[in-house]
């Protein structure tokens, strides 16, 4: 695709990478207090393990709501870039959210989906992406024109850089392996919320 300097690629052509590694690569590129919403399960466990930035929000339930929460944050603080990190199983639960983001035309929002084709945390049962569903095709169909499969690690970092410097919304899909997350989030919802609000400058 001209957008990324690489030809359009489908899910099958994308390299299978490691979620913990790519989460750390993404976080390392955040220099302007960008907000990151970690979806329920391994998405937020790896975000936690990458370093507990105050601008991170860790979900302990409400599967599928990382994108809506990130959209709300992005609406409220238009100058801050916001990332939603979501798993394929979670995103499949709330596909309409992609259309909501597209309709809002939210320029400061990027969605990263880790697609390992399984409900890894419940015992590796297959998700629909391991059968027929291509999440980039769905995102494009929902109106998110800037939607790509990350071909490899360098391409992922290039797409993240675009999300940081260009107008969104942007959708980045990543095929990931079945490795366990690098840590486990501390499960204290009120503390998570308060630290996040402090990180966003909403409360002192």
């Amino acid at each position: 695709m001209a957008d990324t300097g690489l030809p359009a690629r489908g899910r099958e052509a994308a390299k299978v990478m490691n979620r913990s590694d790519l989460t750390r690569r993404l976080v390392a590129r955040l220099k302007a207090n960008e907000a990151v919403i970690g979806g329920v399960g391994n998405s937020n466990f790896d975000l936690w393990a990458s370093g507990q930035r105050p601008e991170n929000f860790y979900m302990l339930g409400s599967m599928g709501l990382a994108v809506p929460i990130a959209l709300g944050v992005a609406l409220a603080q238009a100058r801050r870039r916001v990332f939603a990190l979501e798993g394929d199983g979670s995103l499949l639960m709330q596909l309409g959210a992609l259309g909501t983001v597209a309709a809002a035309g939210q320029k400061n929002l990027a969605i990263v989906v880790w697609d390992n084709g399984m409900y890894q945390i419940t015992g590796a049962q297959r998700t629909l992406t391991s059968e027929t569903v291509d999440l980039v095709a769905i995102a494009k169909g929902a109106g998110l024109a800037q939607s790509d499969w990350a071909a490899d690690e360098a391409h992922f970092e290039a797409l993240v850089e675009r999300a940081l410097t260009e107008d969104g919304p942007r959708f980045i899909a990543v095929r990931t392996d079945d490795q366990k997350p690098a840590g486990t989030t501390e499960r204290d919802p009120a503390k998570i919320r308060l630290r996040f609000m402090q990180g966003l400058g909403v409360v002192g």
Partner: protein
Amino acid sequence: MASDMKDDGTPAETWCDIVVRVLKANEVRLAAYVPDNVIAPLIRLLHADPYFTVLHPAREEEAVGIVAGAYMAGLRGIVLMQTSGFATLPNALASLAVPYQIPVLMMISERGTLGEFQLGQAVVCRTMRPVLETLGIEHFAITRLDEVEFVVDRMIRQAYSTQAPAAMILSPLLTKRHPA
């Protein structure tokens, strides 16, 4: 009161007008809805007013997520829906709004009672209050036009003061007796 009436005897302010005024007074600028006939006039007012950012996500859960995220980033919001839409929300409320102590405002038009014609609506309506009570969510059904301002204003204030979600239920006693 005579001062609250137009010349033709209809109220100077409909319940929708009052809700809009109270939302503004409390700086609630974001509305996310899944539509319903009863709240349709309120949705029209919100869309027509540049004070509000209005989104129409595909599901009520999305609306709760959007309003929760916006609150944490400093923007107050409300979710508008009907009873059957509320019935899709227990998990989002139980795992996001309640434990994280996020004051998600909800306005629910009550279908399924006082003249309902769909059995399914009547059944799902009976789940609403038990769910709200089980989750410990403050809720109140508005039945009279002269209650709208007080109830909506005080419920919004309490939600933000106590860091808790709140459900404002629009009873047919209000919306069918005093159509907007």
